[in-house]
């Protein structure tokens, strides 16, 4: 018997605590070694690109690095300073350098993001940079009267630093006025916030429809004998195993004006031949097809939760005097909440970022925010695309946080 107060040691005399820690560390090192390949893979394919994306959303050096002289003038003079001869001289020098290095295009594009229709002004002036001579202000105005517009100078000022919040302002439907203050863009030009709201509302709607459709099917799956449940499960999973394009194409066949659904409705006399339903190439099409594609993501978590709820709970509730509706509402439904939460979160997050389906069947009014992100990437406005993506990411993380607060992420059950 050792003394109770003395530190315990191993049989060869080492302190037990240290020996245990060493053994634990060894096991942890081995475990890390096992996950290392995946960790590296995730870093390269996920963390680093997302980091770069976030970086690009507020970093765009194409004007600032090509126009160092005028950038220095902007840095030396506060916002609202009337451009003097020195400013025009600095700009003229920058334009000559751009002309020599053939970089006027990228610099002009950057300014154009902040103030549309300035690209041609800059490229035209840069082309004629060789003819510029003092007094520079008059020389600039001789090339184009727009050089007197303070908005142009303000646009160049905000482009003159590599790090900028311009793209977030644009993504939130704001702009910088000529005096540098932030203001909302005119009503008609506000597209991004509306599209964000629409994306979130449509995703919520799709989530609700998925839940309503998936709940009974998941319950059926959970209560059927195993052999039949497996067969039904294959039918549920079938969309998973079909190529996305094949699925979307079949929806086009079914839903178009002369498609199977409309023809059936007309034949049954439900709708007249003249006013066939517009089920595709609009918002309705986006909702129908996305619901179909995302349904399995709702069924699977629900099923996995329902399968382990023993039927004796419902029986107990009934024997205690509850009607079948009360039993469902107070006993069954609360126990499926982890599945509902997981399914809804999964479907919603996938829907918010969905791109290909709205692009194929959404028409003009069925487009979501990801389609606009794609549009800007197509136009090489990477910074704006990145800013929009970052806002989307923040929105999703916010919802995730809200879910954690309301339901608790530890209650999530994905399968």
């Amino acid at each position, binding site marked *: 018997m050792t003394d109770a107060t003395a530190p315990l040691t191993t049989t060869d005399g080492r302190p037990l605590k240290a020996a245990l820690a060493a053994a634990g560390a060894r096991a942890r090192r081995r475990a890390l070694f096992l996950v290392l390949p995946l960790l590296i893979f995730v870093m390269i394919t996920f963390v680093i690109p997302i980091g770069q994306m976030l970086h690009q959303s507020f970093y765009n050096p194409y004007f600032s690095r090509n126009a160092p002289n005028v950038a220095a003038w902007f840095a030396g003079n506060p916002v609202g300073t009337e451009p003097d001869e020195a400013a025009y001289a600095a700009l003229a020098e920058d334009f000559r350098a751009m002309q020599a290095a053939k970089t006027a295009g990228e610099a002009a594009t950057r300014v154009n993001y902040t103030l549309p229709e300035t690209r041609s002004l800059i490229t035209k002036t840069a082309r004629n940079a060789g003819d510029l001579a003092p007094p520079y202000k008059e020389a600039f105005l001789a090339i184009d009267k727009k050089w007197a517009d303070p908005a142009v100078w303000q646009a160049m000022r905000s482009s003159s630093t590599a790090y900028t919040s311009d793209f977030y302002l644009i993504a939130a439907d704001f702009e910088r006025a000529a005096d540098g203050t932030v203001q909302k863009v005119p009503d008609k030009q506000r597209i991004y916030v509306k599209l964000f709201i629409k994306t979130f509302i449509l995703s919520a709607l799709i989530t609700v429809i998925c839940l309503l459709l998936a709940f009974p099917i998941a319950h059926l799956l959970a209560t059927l004998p195993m052999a039949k449940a497996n067969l039904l499960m294959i039918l549920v999973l079938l969309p998973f195993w079909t190529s996305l394009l094949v699925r979307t194409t079949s929806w086009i066949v079914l839903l178009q004006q002369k498609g199977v659904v409309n023809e059936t409705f007309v034949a049954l006399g439900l709708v007249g031949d003249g006013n066939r339903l517009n089920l595709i190439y609009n918002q309705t099409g986006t909702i129908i097809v996305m619901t179909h594609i995302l349904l399995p993501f709702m069924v699977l978590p629900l099923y996995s939760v329902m399968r382990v709820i023993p039927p*004796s709970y419902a029986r107990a509730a009934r024997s*205690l005097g*509850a*009607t079948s509706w009360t039993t469902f509402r107070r006993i069954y439904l609360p126990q499926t909440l982890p599945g509902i939460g997981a399914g809804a979160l999964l479907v919603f997050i996938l829907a918010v970022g969905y791109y290909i389906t709205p692009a194929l069947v959404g028409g003009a009014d069925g487009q979501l925010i990801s389609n606009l992100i794609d549009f800007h990437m197509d136009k090489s406005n990477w910074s704006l695309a990145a800013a929009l993506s970052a806002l989307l990411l923040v929105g999703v993380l916010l919802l995730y946080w809200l879910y954690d607060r309301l339901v608790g992420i530890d209650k999530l059950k994905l399968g």
Partner: protein
Amino acid sequence: MAAAPQGDAYVAFKHVQKSYDGVSLVVKDLNLDIAKGEFLTMLGPSGSGKTTCLMMLAGFETATHGEILLDGRNINMVPPHKRGIGMVFQNYALFPHMTVGENLSFPLEVRGMGKDERETRIKRALDMVQMGAFAARRPAQLSGGQQQRIALARALVFDPALVLMDEPLGALDKQLREHMQFEIKHLHESLGITVVYVTHDQGEALTMSDRIAVFNDGRIQQLASPADLYERPENSFVAGFIGENNKLPGTIEELSGDKALVRLATGEVIDATPVNIREKGQQTLVSIRPERVEFKPGMMPEGAHTLDAEVIEVIYMGDILRAVLRVAGSDGFVMKMRNTLGQTRLSAGDRIKVGWHPQDARALDVI
């Protein structure tokens, strides 16, 4: 309480049949009357139809034929939530998303009971099972025995006159199970409720019940008090299912009233009490309890027939000694002796003679 009174049966099964597939019957022509305040146990191996009977009484299964009466009223078409029967399930079925208090409150809420009365009743029910301090806990935070008590309290909190229990102690360890058996029995006595209890554990059935219905193959094989069932089994299934039994096959040599001589297959003749024997020459299975087998001549009645036996092994079990003997050509004959101070210690290889009182050897039908 040997036989249920016919007139005032509280629960009555009348010619009840149940089939799930339309081909075979799970319950075959069940007739059973249960008196008010009785503790009746349905005992039988799995698949014998006992649980199906309980589920029909609770309302979760419908009888394919026959009537089930509760307090004189036909309840065949009454849905489970209107039967007012308390039920304790094998896995307790406590609602995991509710606290203990909410679990108990549930049956009172669905009955539209006011908050004050609910709280009074919940407190009373929890105190009844000595769980008064646990109202705020979740079922998952309780041990198996505690969950069992809560399940019991929940089934009793709305004052049902009839409580069904479906193998409620199956998941508990032996010591706790025995303790809970007495508690349930005491609750039954103090509350005056009628209990229908399903189990496959014969010890449990013997300890707790007023009467036991032994089920096999969809029929009640015997309905009797625990003592009758143990000491006077009516057929070889009951004799074999309840307790340990020695079985000696033979034919009836002589039959006179309540006495019979049986000639065993090996030629020896033994005394027995005929149970369901009709004529001389009939095949029979004589059943003798191991603790009723004697090997000291002084303990046997005068003129008793004895059999030669050889001790194969003696197992020391603490309170008793268990001897396995070779009797009448068979190796499995068991004799139990009390472990008293003066007990003769047998050892393997000893040759003895065994005998018994004729009323302890029951000549039964052959299965």
